[in-house]
C-alpha cells in the first residue's frame, strides 16, 4: 500500500502563555491511498483542527505531517499554498463556491490556477460533471443550485486538480437526507472507481456508516481507530 498521510506526534496548543488548551494532543495518524475514513468525535474534540493541519491550512505546534513523504510543516506559507493547489482537495461544510462564477467556472478556477490549457480544462470539467450527475447545470450560478447540488460541485472542484486526497469537513452537515445520501454515493463511487483517498470530519451517522475506517477523537486525542469491513467491501476484495 501507498502512504498518503503520515502524521507524527502532532499537537496544537492554544493559550500557550496562560492556561494551555490542547486542541490536538500528540496524534499519530497514518492513511493509505484509497482509504475512505471518517474522523468522528464530539464538538471541540479537535477534528477540524486536525483536518486543517493535515490540509496545510494551519501549522502544528509540535510534530510533523508528511504528505506523500513531504514534510509540510517545514514548508513556507507560499510553498504551502502551491502544495495545497497540487496535492489536496477541500470540501467545506458550507460549500464555499464563488457566487459570481458559474458551476463550471468554479470547477475550472482551480485548473486555471494550475495553468491547465483550456482544451484540457473543458475535457476535465465535462468528465467531472458527468461523475457528479450535473451535466445540465454547468452554466448555473451557485445561487440557482440546491445545497446538495452545490456540494456536488464543491466535490468536483476538489477533484479538479487531481489531488492526492480530499479533506471534507462536515460535508453533509447542511444537506437533507436525500442530498446527503446522493453525495455519499458519488464520493464512495469515486473512491472505489478512481481510488481517491477521502478523509472526513463528521458527526453524521450516515457518513460514519459508509466509512471503511472510523477514527474517534476526544479532547484532541485519538481514542479509537476502527477499520470497518462492510459487506460490499468484502465482496470487492473477494472478486479481486
Amino acid at each position: 500500500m501507498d502512504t498518503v498521510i503520515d502524521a507524527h506526534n502532532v499537537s496544537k496548543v492554544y493559550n500557550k502563555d496562560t492556561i494551555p488548551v490542547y486542541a490536538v494532543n500528540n496524534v499519530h495518524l497514518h492513511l493509505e491511498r484509497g482509504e475512505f475514513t471518517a474522523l468522528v468525535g464530539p464538538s471541540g474534540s479537535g477534528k477540524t483542527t486536525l483536518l486543517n493541519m493535515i490540509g496545510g491550512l494551519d501549522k502544528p505546534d509540535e510534530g510533523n505531517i508528511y504528505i506523500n513523504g513531504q514534510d509540510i510543516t517545514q514548508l513556507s506559507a507560499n510553498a504551502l499554498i502551491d502544495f495545497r493547489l497540487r496535492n489536496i482537495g477541500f470540501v467545506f461544510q458550507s460549500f464555499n463556491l464563488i457566487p459570481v462564477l458559474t458551476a463550471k467556472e468554479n470547477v475550472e478556477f482551480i485548473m486555471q490556477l494550475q495553468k491547465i490549457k483550456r482544451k484540457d480544462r473543458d475535457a476535465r470539467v465535462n468528465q467531472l460533471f458527468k461523475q457528479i450527475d450535473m451535466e445540465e447545470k454547468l452554466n448555473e450560478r451557485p445561487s440557482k443550485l440546491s445545497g446538495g447540488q452545490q456540494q456536488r460541485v464543491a466535490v468536483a472542484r476538489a477533484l479538479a486538480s487531481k489531488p492526492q486526497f480530499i479533506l471534507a469537513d462536515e460535508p453533509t452537515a447542511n444537506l437533507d437526507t436525500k442530498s446527503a445520501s446522493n453525495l455519499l454515493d458519488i464520493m464512495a463511487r469515486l473512491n472505489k472507481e478512481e481510488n481517491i483517498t477521502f478523509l472526513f470530519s463528521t458527526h453524521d451517522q450516515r457518513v460514519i456508516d459508509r466509512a471503511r475506517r472510523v477514527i474517534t477523537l476526544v479532547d484532541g486525542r485519538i481514542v479509537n481507530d476502527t477499520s470497518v469491513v462492510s459487506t460490499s467491501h468484502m465482496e470487492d476484495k473477494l472478486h479481486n
Partner: protein
Amino acid sequence: MAWRNIWRNKTRSIVIMLSIAIGLFSGIAILALYAGMMNSRVRTVIDVEVGHLQIHHPEFKKDYKPEYTIHDGLKMLKSLTSMPEVKLAVPRSIATGMLSTPGGSSGVQINGIIPAQEYLVSKLRDKIIAGNIFSPAKRNQIIIGKKLADKLKLNIGSKLVLTFTDSSDEIVSGAFRVSAIYQSNNAPLDEVNVYITMKEINSMLKIGDEFHEIVLILKQDDYMDTFQSRLSKRFINSKIETWREISPETNLLVKTTDQYSYIIMVIVMLALAFGIINTMLMAILERTKEIGMMLALGTNRIRIFFLVLLETFMLTFVGTPVGILSSWAIISYFNKKGLDLSGMGNEMMNSFGFDSMIYPEFPVDKILNVFLIVFLTALFSCLFPALKALSLQPVEALRR
C-alpha cells in the same frame, strides 16, 4: 471575476462610480474654466493691451525719459510693415506725467497715438462708452478711462491739464478737453492710460516724427518667439520684448493656474479615494470567508492582490468616461454660448483684468494628466484594502 465582483452590490458600486464621474467632471470643469479665463486674459493682453511684441529704445522703460525714442523708428516701422509675419505695426509716443483738474490730480501714462491705427491694435474705438473718437477738426482732445473719470469726476467736455517733461527736461503742460471715455476689462490700466494724438504729444515733447514704442500684432501666435529673436538680431539698437516679458504677471498667472487646477483636482480625487477605500474594504469584509477559501484552495496572495487591484481599477475607471464625456458636452456648450460670471461682480473681475464672460475650453492637452490622477487615485485606494485581503489567514477567514 473582478468585473462580476464589482456588481455584487450594484447600488454601492453605482454610487461610487457616479462620485468618480462627478469628481472628474468638477476637476475638468475647473481646468476648463481656468483655461477659458486664462485664454481670455492672454487674448486681451495680446489683442488689446500689449500686442505680441513691443519695440523700445533699450533705456526707455527704465525711466520713461522722452529723449529715448526708437532709433530710426520710421525706417524700422516701414520695414516691419512689409514683413509677411506682421499683421499690424503701430507706433506710439509715450510720456508719464500728471493729469490735473480743479478737483484733483492723478499720475498718468500719456499715449500719443495715430487714431486710425490705434483703433486696430488696441480696439480703443470699441471700448468707448461715452463721447466720440478723435475728430480731425478739433484740437487738444483726450480720451480717458472710466475709472479715472470716476476718480476725478470728469465728464465728456471736461477740461484738464497734462503736465510732463519734454525731451529737453523742460516741464511742459497743455490743456485738453475730454472727448471720450473708454472702459476695458482691465480697470487698473483704465485708471492710468490716457490717449491724445501723436501729433500733439510729439510737438509738446519736441521729438519731431520720432516715437517711443512700436506695437506688433503678428499673423499667428506661434511666430512670436522666433520672430522676436530674428528682430533682436536685426535691430540691435532696440529692445524687443514679448507680451510675456512686458506683462510677467499674466505669464505667471497662466503658469500657476494650471498648477492650482491640478491641486484642486487632486484634492477632489483624494476625497473620492476615501469613498473608494471604504467601498473596497466593505467588499473585502463581506468576502472574508470567500477569500479564505480561495487561499485554502491554492490561490496565491499575488493573485488575490491583483484581484482587489483590478476591482478597484474597474470601479474607478467605469466612472471615468462618464465624467469625461459629460464634462466635454457641457464645456462644449458653454464654449459656444459663453458663461456669464457678471453675477460674481463685473467690477471685481475687471479689476483683475478678466472679462466677466468666460468661454471655458475642454482641456484636451491635459486629459492624459487627468487619467494619471485617476490612475494614482485608484492605486492609492486599492492599497489598503488589498493589504487587508493579503493579511487574511485561511483558517481564520474560513471560520467567519
